[in-house]
């Protein structure tokens, strides 16, 4: 016997309250039928005896106290999964919108996932060659890593993400399949379109699953989008043994959706109005990256987030940085100088890099070179700030060398063309070449053996 509950008791933002509901369980899905024949979905988020609070995914517009019939679905939010999902375009809550019909599920999975047992994880070690010097040399991306791009509005994060997708050798040598899961949350239509066109251009569209929740789509659906995307990714990686790259943009919109939902529930706000559980919530997404024993596949995440007012201490980038394994930070000043990709080297970091590079992975001098470049470039910044006070002419000869190194480093190492795909050897050699602008005594992060092999000073003209 299926019961319909007629009418609702309260409506508040995206929440409706029903009373006298029997037999419901926490997080259960409900179906709401309106008088005009349309249906919407919702999820139970709070219960007090027979009073339940339901979050409506597609907004509560047109719902009145009397015009609905609500039915319990008897199951939590699940996502239909099948290998046929590759190449499809879905909406934010996982329903196909490409007009190719429903997905015939081989299985369904709860979109919340379950936490991976830390014991069952495989520590990620295989590096992904992206063909971008800055990333490969200094912020190496590792398969199974979560490495966000911290950007700001108007910066070239989308181009960077597209370039990574195009150039990255995601599949491994023994030809395991790879695919891309793309989740758009609250982005503009042209951004989603740009990604779509780019995927089509390099002919990988049949390897992409797109979940689109655009800027004008309902907020609540946006909260589900990354969960659905990661459920797909986990299925492809751990059951179909594929290497999956997940791009999620824009995490800031996701967090804002969460804030809107939280405040409509009347929860006590934490920093900048975001709910106190923002950290746990973000972690429940980011932690779904990785590799597990007994499966050949992997989930690698590149979330993109725009820092409001370019502020890296804003709660969203801040909490993200504490969860993810490093970050790629973009810099507006570099972009202003026409440098692409405008990666701010110093605050960027890859935590998994140290075990995935060096002998047997990239080249034995990689770690030492990376340390030296970081350390020398930090001195460039010091020299520049000194120059802005006393003038470049007054600098000591060694500081002048740093200035020269800095300019060359930015215009030749960081800067590269959108279509340029550099091999790891090229990138490392270029790094050594640029260090030639500095005298040997300044290179204190490298031991003499490596230095003798690779270092060639460039004499002053």
């Amino acid at each position, binding site marked *: 016997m299926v019961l319909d509950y007629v009418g609702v008791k309260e409506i508040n933002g995206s929440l409706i309250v029903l009373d006298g509901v029997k037999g419901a369980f*926490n997080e259960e899905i409900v179906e709401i039928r309106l008088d005009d024949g349309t249906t919407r979905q919702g999820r139970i988020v709070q219960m007090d005896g027979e009073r339940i609070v339901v979050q409506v995914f597609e907004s509560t517009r047109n719902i009145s106290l009397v015009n609905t019939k609500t039915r319990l679905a008897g199951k939590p939010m699940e996502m239909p999964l099948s290998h046929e999902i590759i190449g499809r375009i879905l909406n934010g809550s996982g329903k196909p919108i490409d007009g190719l019909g429903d997905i015939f599920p081989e299985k369904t999975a709860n979109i919340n996932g379950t936490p991976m047992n830390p014991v*069952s994880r495989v520590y990620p070690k295989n590096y992904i060659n992206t063909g971008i010097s800055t990333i490969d040399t200094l912020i190496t991306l590792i398969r199974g890593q979560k490495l966000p791009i911290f950007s700001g509005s108007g910066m070239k994060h989308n181009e960077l993400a597209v370039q990574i997708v195009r150039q990255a050798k995601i599949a491994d040598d023994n030809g395991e399949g790879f695919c891309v899961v793309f989740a758009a949350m609250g982005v503009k239509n042209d951004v989603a379109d740009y990604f779509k066109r780019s995927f089509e251009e390099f002919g990988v569209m049949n390897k992409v699953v797109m979940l689109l929740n655009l800027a004008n789509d309902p907020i609540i659906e946006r909260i589900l989008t990354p969960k659905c995307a990661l459920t797909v990714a986990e299925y492809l990686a751990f059951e179909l043994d594929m290497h999956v790259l997940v791009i999620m943009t824009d995490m800031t919109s996701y967090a804002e959706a969460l804030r809107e939902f939280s405040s409509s529930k009347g929860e006590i706000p934490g920093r900048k109005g975001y709910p106190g559980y923002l950290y746990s919530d973000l972690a429940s997404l980011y932690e779904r990256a990785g590799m597990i024993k007994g499966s050949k596949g992997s989930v690698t995440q590149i979330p993109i987030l725009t820092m409001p007012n370019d502020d890296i201490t804003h709660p969203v980038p801040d909490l993200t940085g504490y969860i993810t*394994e490093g970050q790629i930070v973009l810099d507006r000043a570099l972009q202003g100088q026409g440098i692409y990709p405008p990666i701010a080297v110093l605050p960027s970091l890859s935590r998994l890099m140290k075990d995935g590079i060096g002998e047997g992975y990239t080249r034995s001098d990689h770690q030492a070179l990376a340390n030296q470049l970081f350390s020398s470039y930090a*001195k460039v910044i010091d020299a520049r700030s000194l120059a802005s006070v006393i003038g470049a002419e007054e600098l000591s000869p060694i500081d002048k060398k740093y200035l020269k190194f800095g300019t060359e480093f930015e215009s030749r190492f960081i800067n590269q063309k959108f279509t340029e795909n550099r091999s790891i050897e090229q990138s490392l050699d270029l790094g050594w070449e640029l260090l030639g602008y500095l005298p040997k005594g300044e290179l204190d992060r490298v031991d003499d053996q490596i230095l003798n092999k690779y270092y060639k000073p460039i004499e002053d003209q």
Partner: protein
Amino acid sequence: MDNKDVIFGINGPVVTVKASKTFSMMEMVYVGKQKLVGEVIKITDKATTIQVYEETTGLKPGDEIVGTGAPMNVLLGPGIMDNIFDGIERPLKEIEKITGSAFISRGAAVSSLDTEKRWNVTLTVKKGDKLKGGDIYAATQETAIIEHRVMVPPYLSGEVVKVYPNGMYTINDTVVELKDKQGKIHKLTLCQKWPIRNPRPIAQKKPADIPLITGQRVIDTLFPISKGGTAAVPGGFGAGKTMTQHQLAKWCDADIIVYVGCGERGNEMSQVLQEFGELIDPKSGRPMTDRTVLIANTSNMPVAAREASIYTGITLAEYYRDMGYHCAIMADSTSRWAEALREISGRLEEMPAEEGFPAYLPSRLSEFYERASRVINLNGSEGSVTVIGAVSPQGADFSEPVTQNTKRFIRCFWALDKSLAYARHYPAINWMTSYSEYFTDLDKWFEENQGREFINCRAKISSILQEENKLMEIVKLIGADVLPDDQKLIIETARVIRVGFLQQNAFHKDDTFVPLEKQKLMMKTILHLHEVATDLISRNIPISRITSLGLFDKLTKMKYDIPNDRLDMFTEYEKEIDEALNSTISAEFN
């Protein structure tokens, strides 16, 4: 009983029961059909509030809640070492085996410790012995280096009436029978339970006058910590908190390491598992895991268990301390724990204090840090628990509530600095903002073991760094070129100290752990060069002449060039310095 307690309301990890009188505060309960573990956190005459340590999806109003009659506790006994648990002491390896899946399902009922495994037990008491709480009655080799000493539960005492023979026993087998004053017979097994929120009792606290040697130069020389001390490692993301914690866990001279991954990354825990398994402890020649227990409650595991994980960790440490071991607990990170408090407090609709944290945050922090100390145990042995907590301040702003409140209860503050980390200066411990209050307590030990010289060197090193800091203010404004030579020398020496001494390479085989003796000799050599150079400058020899000798560069690399077992090489270095500078003098004046 027909009067069952059932769920009324559900909100995230918090469930409520209406008008029940059966529960007591902090009691452990089982919730619903799947028997999810929960804890009573609030009682009024109208409702009892319970926090559930697992995902609450699928729970229904009307599901039964069963009390256990005891507060949240952990099982203590052999099998803890070399194991990995979640926040409420469930063994993750066992769960993996039982569920056969890489994902943690809910309500997985597994005993914390292996109940099948037989331990080779040696009984150390005989019939008629009078035992009191904490006394050891049996021992078994838990791992190759840790002997597990089985103790009488703290509040029990009496006379031994029966002793079983030495042999193989599981943790639940009775090995000793004890008759208390009332004549009641207690069967003692190899294990006992202890509520995680209660500190285990001790006989007496001891002063903090023995250092915990970590082999990390900046810590051992400039900011030492004592055994039984407390330290905080605050730093924004990417500043190297976890790296510092790992280094300490690997190299510090505690007998037992409890590593609590509290709300941190899953991949990091798998790294710890892998690295510690491969790494050989130089003292014992055995893998590090033999003396390590890991508590892994990653950030996506339930938030309430994250709150408990810190207490679980320190209870395990206290248990081994009672056996007479020196234990160190690394908590990474206490901010995640504080956030778990905030999250649960928010669900309870409590009145928030600063930044949404509950008003009881400081008292909870102090309760935790006060469990650290060096003590005389009930059984007369000496042990210690050292607490090193990482703090992840929001936006790397040290004025936020968790950092500020932590600062009040710890005595060692290793402040990690973003700009040092950007320049890849690790450990990125800022020598200007960090401090240790243990200096004076430890002076006596250093004097006895390393001589007065060590303390003198340390004082000079830190005064040069102070001096440099002042000079850098000027340099920032007008450049280094205008400074007089003696000040340039300070800057040059400070550079050697920073790069050659404070900076330490965790991936270099000699540099990752440096014995105190080498630390002292390194300081001595640097200061020797500084003194001789000062002398030369006072004779009007320009500093450029001195630096062109390459001695400063040579000293910055001595950490790599001198292996830890070739400390005699320092004499050669000193000789070389003297010779090079003497020849400069003769060249100048002849």
